[in-house]
């Protein structure tokens, strides 16, 4: 009994520690005045109104959405088919994905940026300060997440048997991928995409070092805003956190649905 209480106190403290800054940010974003009281003195949505009506914010958000979505779609188009082919036809090439997705751990954003700046600031491919270099480097950045999430969803279906079953029924290779494989990994692909988008929405290092003011993403906008207008920046941080919350909820929902299905399958099969 004693142990249970100590555990719950420890948990309570850790959660308070983790959520204090978040709750404070959310409260501060709707506070009229808040300095010497425990709770804000009044509430308002004016900072949000101001933020969402600011054209700079709109543009920065649009840039971030453009770059993240472009990268994620590109990544899906490239990674899903090749991973499928690796599993069914080239099991030895699966190693390639593993190597490619462990390398970014040795090369965090700062290091990668050093290489990219030197390579692409001159010579035939001058793409620093353009969104193109962001798409390229973001592709590498999200590779581990894409690989992990899609690998898991490939694992839950028996890719090889499904392919062979389709083949035995006379289905061509491309048709098999489009009609059988892709619909069955779609949920995993969506999870991978959501995780990737939330990573990219929070990405600052590469954006700051590779393009900076030339392609102001939402994080760079936030960094600048923070020095100009604290309340506005705070509304932005709060919105950002709510977006992350929303994505997490969708992810939980996706995982939960899959789990109940798998569980249902197991108990029924018994």
């Amino acid at each position, binding site marked *: 009994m004693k142990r249970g209480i100590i555990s719950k106190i420890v948990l309570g403290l850790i959660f308070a520690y983790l959520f204090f800054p978040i709750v404070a940010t959310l409260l501060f974003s709707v506070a009229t005045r808040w300095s010497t009281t425990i709770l804000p003195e009044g509430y308002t949505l004016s900072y949000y109104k101001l933020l969402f009506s600011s054209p700079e914010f709109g543009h920065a958000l649009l840039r971030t959405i453009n770059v993240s979505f472009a990268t994620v779609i590109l990544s899906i188009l490239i990674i899903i088919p090749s991973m499928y082919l690796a599993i069914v036809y080239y099991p030895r090439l699966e190693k390639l994905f593993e190597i490619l997705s462990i390398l970014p751990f040795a090369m965090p954003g700062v290091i990668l940026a050093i290489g990219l700046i030197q390579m692409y600031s001159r010579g035939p491919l001058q793409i620093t300060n353009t969104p193109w270099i962001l798409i390229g480097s973001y592709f590498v950045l999200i590779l581990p997440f894409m690989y992990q999430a899609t690998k898991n969803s490939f694992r839950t279906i028996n890719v090889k048997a499904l392919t062979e*079953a389709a083949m*035995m*029924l006379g289905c061509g290779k491309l048709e098999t991928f489009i009609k*059988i494989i892709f*619909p*069955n990994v779609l949920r995993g692909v969506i999870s991978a995409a959501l995780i990737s988008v939330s990573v990219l929405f929070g990405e600052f290092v590469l954006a700051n070092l590779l393009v900076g003011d030339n392609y102001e993403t939402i994080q760079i906008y936030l960094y600048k805003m923070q020095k100009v207008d604290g309340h506005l920046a705070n509304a932005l941080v709060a919105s950002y956190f709510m977006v992350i919350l929303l994505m997490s909820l969708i992810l939980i929902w996706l995982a939960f649905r899959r789990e109940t299905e*798998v569980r249902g*399958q197991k108990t*029924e099969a018994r």
Partner: protein
Amino acid sequence: MSYVQVVNIDKSFQGRQVLKGIELEIEKGEFVTLLGPSGCGKTTLLRIVAGLERGDGGKVIVNGREIIEGQNKKEQNIGMVFQSYALFPNMTAFENIAFGLKIKKIPTQDIRKQVEEIMDILSISGKENNYPHQMSGGQQQRVALARALVVKPDLLLLDEPLSAVDAKVRESARILIRDVQKKMGITTIFVTHDQLEALVMSDRIVVINAGEVMQYGTPEEIYRRPANKFVAQFIGTYNFLPSSLVGIGDKETEICIRPEHILLVSKDQFPQIGNAEGIKLYGTLENFYILGNTARAEVLVQGRTIIVDHLNRFEGPKFALKEEVGLLIDKKVCTILGR
């Protein structure tokens, strides 16, 4: 020419030979089972017949057409049921079954008719709109079977389809598969490691061990006259006795006798029954237990344990342990195994 011909198939995986010169002929409408312990190469052989794997040498001909790995299987017309069923999780039962017909570009109303027909035969009508995860193992298995059968294949391949369901379902599924196969007259190759399944379902059985055909024959032949010690040991229970003990064959041979072919009698009755042709042995009853509808006795004869089975009748003979008993063996039930 046989309907299915397997000619001299070899196959190695990473330097390990898994199939050695397999030869097989199957007639139209036959139900043939590939039976063997796990890892004997039976599934690999099935996959080569399906054209999913390429043999290192030899060829497979089905209905006059050579099967080639990697070729589009539209022409091949071979149906297959996988061990895991491999039902498409994103499709309903109906869509799963209709898939092969759609690929063949059969008109929609014909598809509906044919799918409903096969679902009726396999008693899964009403499950049309269920997704695989909403069905029981037995139902999934029937959908997989329906999906393979609905295209009226020249040859049906079944890769241990009964291994994933529980004992009750398995028993009824054996009979169902057998009945449907006979009704539709579809030539079938069935892979299993379960001897009982093989005996119950097959017209002929191919016993495979370590990549080689051990025996090819009817269930009757396989059970009564095993061609070698492997088959004898693999199927059912056998007593292996030296020829000297029973007095037939020469010194080098071994005699095998089914436990149910031996008659257990009390010592006092022994002299009066049996004819002169019978072999009579004396021994002591070491152990006695009930298996269900049969009962098993272990009798020690000249230092060897002989197993004797008999029907577990309500008023069967009663023996005490360590009692001296007699064993009566007809000479014609003895199979002589060469070395």
